[in-house]
């Protein structure tokens, strides 16, 4: 299936280009399909391609030495990933895995450099994309470094426990994130950490506080 010009035009990188310019870029774009849970990029490996999501969703994440995963971004249709190493020449700073079946459009690193040379007007949009990425990551750094998010999530769980007989208010991870003043991605990881520490157990739609004292200790860690 040929890459649609309309799709290329909808990508922020190329939104200011005319049809003739898009046509020349289209020749450099290749398609890649992947099923659910396929690794597209591995952190630390050499970066070869810039990718745009045409359909489906890709998760960009880092993994700690202990195997803990921190989502950096959720990449939806029209958005790109792996931009940074394509331009700085370094290795992949994070891994990327599909969250379902996906169709990706890729451009090889050298082809992207040629596109920038031939169409310098896209540079401003590239800067805009990279600036948005920096802003997002700065916010994530703040959440992960300066806020004791796990303690806040622990406190939120305590404050929203249902009664013995009746149901308490039910909370989504999005709501917990808003209450804790953090990103949804950070709450997911916090819940996993609390589970690993034995304070809670995730049981489908229930969060069971299995060790009240442990949760209290985590809650009381100063920020």
């Amino acid at each position, binding site marked *: 299936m040929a890459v649609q010009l309309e799709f290329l035009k909808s990508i922020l990188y190329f939104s200011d280009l005319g049809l003739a310019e898009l046509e020349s870029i289209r020749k450099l774009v290749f398609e890649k399909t992947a099923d*659910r849970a396929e690794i597209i990029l591995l952190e630390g490996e050499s970066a070869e391609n810039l990718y745009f999501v045409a359909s489906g969703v890709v998760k960009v994440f880092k993994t700690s030495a202990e195997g803990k995963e921190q989502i950096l971004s*959720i990449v939806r249709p029209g958005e790109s990933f792996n931009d940074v190493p394509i331009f700085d020449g370094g290795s992949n700073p994070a891994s990327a895995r599909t969250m379902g079946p996906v169709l990706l459009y890729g451009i090889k690193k050298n082809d992207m450099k040629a596109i920038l040379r031939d169409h310098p007007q896209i540079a401003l949009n590239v800067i805009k994309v990279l600036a948005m990425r920096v802003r997002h990551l700065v916010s994530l750094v703040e959440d992960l470094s300066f806020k004791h998010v796990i303690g806040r999530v622990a406190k939120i769980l305590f404050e929203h426990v249902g009664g013995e007989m009746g149901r308490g208010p039910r909370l*989504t991870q*999005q709501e917990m994130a808003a209450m804790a003043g953090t990103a949804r991605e950070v709450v997911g990881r916090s819940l996993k950490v609390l589970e690993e520490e034995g304070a809670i157990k*995730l049981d489908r739609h*229930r969060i069971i506080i299995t060790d009240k004292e442990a949760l209290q200790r985590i809650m009381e860690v100063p920020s």
Partner: protein
Amino acid sequence: MAEIPVIDPKKCDGCGLCVGVCHLNALAIVNNIITIIEAVECDWCADCELVCLTGAISCPFEIIIQEP
């Protein structure tokens, strides 16, 4: 009755991202609105909630204390 994710049809724009990420194939777009077709299969991974840009589907948790 099986617990199912909560859908707000007014917020759903029918983009279908949640359908693609549901690893149990519990979701489908019916008449441009997200619909649960296999509720009993939902394992509450909340990926649908994570990818939804409009907040149309959510997986709220009930929080309980396990008494010793």
